[in-house]
């Protein structure tokens, strides 16, 4: 599949400091997560792809277009939702999104139509005629998303989209992002510190550290992989007996978070056997799921590499 974003030895310097060190990666998923500790270069990468910084060496291609030679075309394909506040407080919501859409090249009538549509889509239908300066934090975030999608881009850059949102607003934002991802015609690059959000919304993950690619993995594949790892939570009289019986089967066990049990089942042992034990001991298996490396494990492993290299 043609890569959505292709980094080809991309190097970016500020003065003498090298911020991005010859990054090489090919991102093909519908939705790619961008992770990394503070100072790893995530914002610099996004700003460079948008054309705000010039690469000192190497280049990158977005949907096939080189960012060095076709910067303008690249920007017409991208919608950007910045991390910080970004609005014009005296304008109404629709007015600002119209302005931004027209600046992206839409004719005025279409810009107006699409501005309204965008507002309804992100759930701000009721407040679109109010000045943005009066919006609450959640509304401002949604308005940022509206201006990013109004001109119909092919790739969205979302920088900390759930920043500061309270739980229902977070859930709604995540739901929106998942809907956008599932559409298929709009790709996403999601940069966030919240591993949970990235896990829920992204197919692939690019982890940066100190300006290098520390890890690049495909979450879909990770999820589909090896079914031998389990996490259990039990309730019953004799948890100790259950543990002993399970270990007698040949499983390796280890205590997990929140009082749960991590298991590795050897070949030949099926989940059914665990239930046999449970039935016999009158133990309830309250929680059971297959766990491959969760994103948190992947991230921590990536951070352990000394110079941040894969």
């Amino acid at each position, binding site marked *: 599949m043609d890569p959505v974003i292709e980094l080809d030895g991309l190097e970016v310097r500020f003065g003498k400091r090298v911020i991005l060190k010859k990054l090489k990666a090919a991102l093909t998923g519908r939705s790619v997560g961008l992770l990394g500790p503070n100072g790893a270069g995530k914002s610099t990468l996004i700003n460079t792809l948008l054309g705000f910084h010039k690469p000192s060496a190497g280049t990158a291609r977005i949907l096939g277009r080189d960012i060095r030679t076709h910067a303008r075309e690249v920007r017409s394909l991208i919608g*950007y939702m*910045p991390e910080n506040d970004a609005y*014009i407080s005296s304008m109404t919501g629709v007015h600002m999104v119209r302005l931004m859409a027209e600046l992206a090249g839409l004719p005025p009538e*279409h810009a107006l139509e699409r501005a309204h549509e965008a507002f309804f889509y992100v759930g701000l239908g009721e407040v679109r005629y109010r000045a943005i300066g009066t919006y609450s934090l959640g509304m401002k975030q949604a308005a940022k998303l509206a201006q990013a*999608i109004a001109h119909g881009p092919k790739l969205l850059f979302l920088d900390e989209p759930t920043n500061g949102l309270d739980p229902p607003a977070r859930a709604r934002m995540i739901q929106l992002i998942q809907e956008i991802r599932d559409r298929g015609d709009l790709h996403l690059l999601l940069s966030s510190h919240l591993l949970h959000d990235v896990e829920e919304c992204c197919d692939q993950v690019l982890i940066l550290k100190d300006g290098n690619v520390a890890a690049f993995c495909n979450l879909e594949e990770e999820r589909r992989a090896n079914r031998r790892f389990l996490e259990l939570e039990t309730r019953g009289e004799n948890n100790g007996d259950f543990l002993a019986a399970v270990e007698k089967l040949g499983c390796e066990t280890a205590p997990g978070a929140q009082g749960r049990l991590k298991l590795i089942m050897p070949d030949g042992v099926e989940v059914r056997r665990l239930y046999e034990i449970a039935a016999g001991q009158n133990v309830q298996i309250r929680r059971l799921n297959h766990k491959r490396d969760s994103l948190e494990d992947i991230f921590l492993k990536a951070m352990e590499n000394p110079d941040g290299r894969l």
Partner: protein
Amino acid sequence: MAVYKKTYRPYEGKLTPGWSRFLVIPRYAFTEFHGKRFLSLFFFASFIYPLICALIIYVQHNASALNLLGVQGQGARGLISINVTFFMNLLGWQSVLALFLASFVGPGQVSPDLANNALTLYLARPFSRVEYVLGKMSVLAILMSLMTWIPGLLCFALQGYLEGWQWMKDNARLASGMFFGAWLWILMLALLALALSAWVKWKPAAGGLMFGVFFVGSAFGAVINAVQRTTWGNIFNIGHLVGVVWVQLFEGSNRTTNGAVFFRATAGEELPLWTCWMALAALSLICLYMLARKIRGAEVVR
């Protein structure tokens, strides 16, 4: 029966041509000005002087009107002569009004975009910094053009129509002086207004600074002249600089005037022409530099 869901749809229609995108900014700015009554009143009031000028021109050529005024024959010509002074004064007055306009309108151009980081949104589109500045300058340029050279050239055209083609050819310099002189002023003001708007957040302060640059500058220049007994202090007097250039534009080498109302270069103290051009160019470059520093997509932290 069909059920329609509100959903996202990609845009496949055609786009507006790239070169005209910067005009979106003045279009939006003008819709906002509609609501501001004071501004609209001021704008329309600024046409009063040109109207009076047009009236004078008309009256000069209209015998019955002259009879009414009780002036006859050659005396009529002497009432108010339509010459260099006339047009320079027109330009001068309208330019002062343009300064007022720029002080009201200018500060609100760039600072709202910088206040809440909206500039990132502008520049994340196929829209460059140059287009942004051009768009914002157009807002001021269009308004100021409507106040300065457009009425001026219309008066010139009226005079030419009434006097005849020969007069127009002889006095073509008046038209070009009006046009280029106005544009010089417009560009200086626009750059200055935008630079101040980008750097000064509080709008009244930015407006005050616009005036300050002119009046304080000229006072400073006068002080230097007095103290150092020289004429070089006039370099800080933008009115002086512009006046000298205007005299050159309108009259070339044979001067009869020394500028117009506010843009007077006191006789004997004129700076050489090349100095004036250099000083004005330096001021423009400073403003452009100030703009370039502030108008960025992303801050670079070293």
